[in-house]
């Protein structure tokens, strides 16, 4: 809210610099975000008079303090900070109260939504321009001067915080005022010229026949003040905050009025504000008041009395202050308090609807005492902090992948549904009902598309050798139709895994299927998972013959392989790219609880090699499985040395060379024992897989 400090000074004596008062208000909870000097010339340029310059504060009013949304509200907060008192404008309330007559009947049909409605009639006004000083004030507050009648309603709203509305009395049917919920099918043309369809839970101000204003939000065009208006009905009412908020949101219109009503307007000030505005109308627009104050106030709202236990305040705030001091602090804020039997009793004025319980008063005590003056301690009891299992597991996954030379990435959870769809992942996807844009209308179901976009973006920046990973949530719809999430770990790579160097041929380190698989195998090994298996698989976005599904304990936990060229190009990746994505939740469940180390061997090992011609139909994993079975007892490990194809071998087969290490834990093996094992292995390979040896 923009606040003229010239205006503020009319209601409170500020005996310190503006910087100081700005700082004190900020420390009291009313943050002065900006303090800006506006020259007289600037006011004049904006259509004002500009007799003098002003300093305009931009204050940030928290949603609980609707009472700060006025000059007197800020003056009231500032007063104890400068040892001063807030001054209300001079108004002849007694004179007005004595007046008789109600020229326009007012009835509140829905008192749950309208607590009070004050109407005063003024006739023979002359609509024209407002005086320059008033225009300057409105401009300082960021409002545009319109005409004297409308400007006065705005001026009093800014001054006292009470939104007002002026009707052209001659345009009201009856004339009468009925405050009621809208009827089905009713519409209203609001002052901004829009035709608004009203719902039956919206409160309206109606005349005899039709709605003439949307209560607390905006007036209607058909009864608005115009150049030929002479007679005015001024409205000063108090509407229910929730109702005003709902109506304003449904109609998509936030106004200075609705903003204030949503945050609570003091019901006690309705009549005062009405009289203040009428006096200004009579003074500046030459009108004559007809009748008295028509004040419909079905249930008068009285100050709430709240008890505060001084000990409780000290316990919460960590202070040790006497009840008398608490009293002084509260009274200083305008919260009239006294001590009764050791308890502080506070009569909460109606402009502070945010204070309803003891804890609200404790906050006031703290505020008045000064948060900055409170001591600093640590909780008396010491407790044992700890990480959670998933947190530790995520850290471990990241450590391994980083050691594999991969850069950690963080990407958006909200992505474009069409992208997910192109990766075949929209089945069961979580869709956002009110997305910011079409590019952010779904929750990711996998991390791979995002990581490929990261590759593409880096390639566009000239980085050809990139490998990235992310550990993050992916989202899906559960069997009950509710959205859910799980943790995923994924990587993507393209170009050289080493990078570029003057004495390294880049192509010799180009990432390929086996680089990608190697990362996954390293990851599994480092987190203690043994016996993972890999099977050929198909995915919409993956290379049809270079994709594997990963199984741990026989359960599928993810995929790896080369990205289908069309899919890679679809997100802008150039050249071949490789990805993996595993369920981190599933991995965590497969991690052994503890690892038992094996004793290191004491006897020497014997190494043997063997090359065989194998049909392409036989997967390498099956060969190795047979070797392990046949070498039982003394085969320590088996590995692949080489795979090659040649015309001599012929199509449909390849030569695979393997290496084996034999060792006994009890004695030194003889060559004969190793040779016997080799014979068994050869026989088993021939029997199981029909391999031939050259």
């Amino acid at each position, binding site marked *: 809210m923009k606040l003229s400090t010239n205006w503020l000074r009319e209601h409170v004596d500020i005996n310190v610099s503006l910087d100081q008062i700005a700082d004190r208000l900020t420390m009291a*909870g009313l*943050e002065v*975000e900006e303090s800006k000097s506006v020259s007289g010339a600037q006011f004049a340029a904006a259509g004002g008079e500009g007799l003098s310059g002003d300093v305009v504060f931009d204050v940030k009013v*928290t*949603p*609980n*303090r609707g009472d700060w949304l006025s000059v007197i509200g800020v003056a009231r907060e500032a007063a104890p900070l400068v040892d001063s008192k807030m001054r209300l404008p001079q108004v002849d309330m007694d004179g007005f109260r004595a007046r008789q007559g109600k020229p326009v009947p007012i009835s509140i049909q829905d008192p749950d939504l309208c607590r009070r409605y004050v109407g005063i009639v003024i006739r023979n006004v002359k609509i024209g321009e407002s005086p320059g000083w008033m225009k300057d004030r409105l401009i300082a507050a960021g409002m545009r001067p319109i005409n004297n009648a409308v400007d006065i309603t705005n001026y009093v709203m800014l001054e006292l915080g009470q939104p007002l509305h002026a009707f052209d009395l001659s345009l009201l049917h009856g004339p009468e005022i009925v405050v009621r919920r809208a009827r089905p099918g009713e519409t209203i043309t609001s002052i901004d010229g829009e035709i608004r369809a009203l719902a039956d839970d919206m409160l309206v101000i109606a005349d005899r026949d039709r709605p003439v204003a949307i209560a607390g939000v905006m007036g209607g065009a058909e009864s608005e003040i115009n150049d030929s208006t002479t007679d005015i009905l001024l409205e000063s009412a108090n509407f229910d905050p*929730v109702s005003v908020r709902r109506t304003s949101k449904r109609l998509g219109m936030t106004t200075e009025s609705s903003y204030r009503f949503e945050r609570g307007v003091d019901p006690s000030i309705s009549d005062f504000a009405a009289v203040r505005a009428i006096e200004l109308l009579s003074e500046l627009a030459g009108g004559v008041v007809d009748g008295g104050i028509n004040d419909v106030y079905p249930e008068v709202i009285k100050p709430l009395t709240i008890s505060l236990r001084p000990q409780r305040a000290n316990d*919460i*705030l*960590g*202070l040790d202050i006497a009840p008398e001091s608490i009293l002084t602090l509260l009274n200083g804020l305008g919260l009239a308090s006294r001590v009764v039997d050791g308890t502080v009793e506070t009569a909460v004025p109606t402009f502070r609807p945010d204070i309803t*319980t003891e*804890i609200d008063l*404790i906050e006031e005590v*703290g505020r008045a005492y000064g*948060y900055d003056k*409170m001591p*600093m*301690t*640590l*909780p008396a*009891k*010491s407790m*044992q*902090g*700890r*990480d*959670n299992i998933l*947190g530790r597991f995520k850290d471990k996954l990241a450590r391994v992948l*980083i*050691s*594999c*030379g991969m*850069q*950690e*990435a*963080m*990407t958006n*959870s*909200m992505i474009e549904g069409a992208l997910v769809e192109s990766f075949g992942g929209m089945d069961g996807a*979580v*869709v956002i009902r*009110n*997305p*910011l844009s079409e590019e*952010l209308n779904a929750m990711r179901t996998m991390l791979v598309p995002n990581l490929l976009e*990261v590759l593409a*973006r*880096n390639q566009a*920046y000239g980085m050809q050798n990139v490998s*990235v*990973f992310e550990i993050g949530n992916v*989202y899906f719809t559960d069997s009950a139709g509710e959205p*859910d*999430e799980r943790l995923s770990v994924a990587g993507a790579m393209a170009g050289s895994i*080493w*990078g570029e160097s003057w*004495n*390294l041929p880049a192509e010799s380190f180009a990432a390929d299927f086996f680089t990608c698989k190697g990362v996954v195998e390293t990851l599994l090994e480092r987190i203690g998972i043994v016996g993972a298996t890999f099977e050929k698989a198909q995915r919409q976005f993956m290379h049809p013959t270079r994709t594997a599904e990963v199984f741990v304990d026989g359960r599928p936990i993810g995929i790896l392989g080369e990205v289908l060229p069309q899919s890679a190009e679809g997100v802008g990746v150039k050249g071949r790219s490789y990805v993996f994505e595993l369920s981190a939740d599933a991995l965590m469940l497969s991690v052994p609880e503890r690892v038992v180390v094996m004793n290191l061997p004491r006897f020497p090992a014997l190494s043997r090699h063997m090359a065989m011609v194998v049909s392409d139909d036989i997967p390498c994993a099956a060969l190795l499985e047979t070797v392990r079975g046949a070498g039982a007892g003394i085969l320590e490990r088996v590995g692949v040395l080489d795979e090659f194809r040649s015309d001599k071998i012929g199509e449909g087969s390849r030569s695979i060379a393997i290496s084996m290490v034999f060792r006994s834990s009890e004695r030194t093996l003889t060559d004969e024992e190793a040779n016997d094992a080799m014979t068994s292995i050869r026989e088993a390979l021939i029997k199981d897989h029909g391999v031939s040896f050259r």
Partner: protein
Amino acid sequence: MSELDTLRNLRSEALAKISAAGSSAVLESIDTEYLGRKGEVTGLLRKIGSLPPDERKDFGQAVNVLKEELAAAIAVRLGQLSSTELDAKLAGEAVDVTMPGRLFRTGHTHVLVETMRRIKDIFIGLGYEMVDSPDIESYKYNFEALNYPEEHPAMDEQMSFYINDHRLLRTQTTAFQHRVMEVRKPPLRMCTIGRCYRYENVDATHGHTFHQVDCFTVDHGITMADLKGTLQQFATQMFGKAVGVRFRPDFFPFVEPGAEIAITCVLCDGGGCGVCKQTGWLELGGAGMIHPNVLKGVGIDPEEYSGFAFGMGIERMPMLVHSISDLRVFMENDVRFLRQL
């Protein structure tokens, strides 16, 4: 010529050859020539049988002495030669040490993850237990349980992405409070770090997606002073000894008294600069004493227990420390940026 004369000649000839040997290969052939199985010195020993018995002992000793002398001379010369040869070999292996090295392409932690880890370590040290909480949250945990009245203007700062009528993307990690307190009883000292979402258009300082850390404590006798002390501890560990914490009243429905947390501007040390809008302070998050309604909502008696809670944005911390002006860089994953941190 006596056999001893032969021996003497052989000795001077061999020693001359050894000292003249120019390479370890020549030396090796000298070794074979004299000391090998068919070598000349070895040949002398075979002649012992043809000598008169009274000369045999002396001659044998003399040959053995010669044998040892020559072996020692060869060893000495070999030592000299291999050192020279090694020197020559090493001299031929020169590299230009100013040519660039072959850099390892190491992996790297994302700066936000690194920040989160540091925060986590600090709070674990202060006795907090880490928990995870879901991104997709219920209206109940995100708002209702946190004492947001229906249709409250406070929700204007928490514009949400909805999945359906009762599920949304959490707007604040504070949503974990009620979840934890539903299943755990005091004393509690809990911390969560995670992703939040708000319906906001993206610019340099706002994102629709961001990260927060949220902590809360519930125990007997917890005070606002404990809250202040805890956050001062955090600020000192995170930003350094010189950084102070400022508390001023603010409003969040789930705490009362409520406070805004600010730290001394780390760029100007509190003197006032463009980043802190000349105030010398940088806002870090919100805090306060847990509202009695929140405690009552999970069956904890606010007369018996009290607690504090606070939440802070993660992105802002590395932005301040590393002078990052646009938070969009965090999710763009340009490796040229990420590798700098």
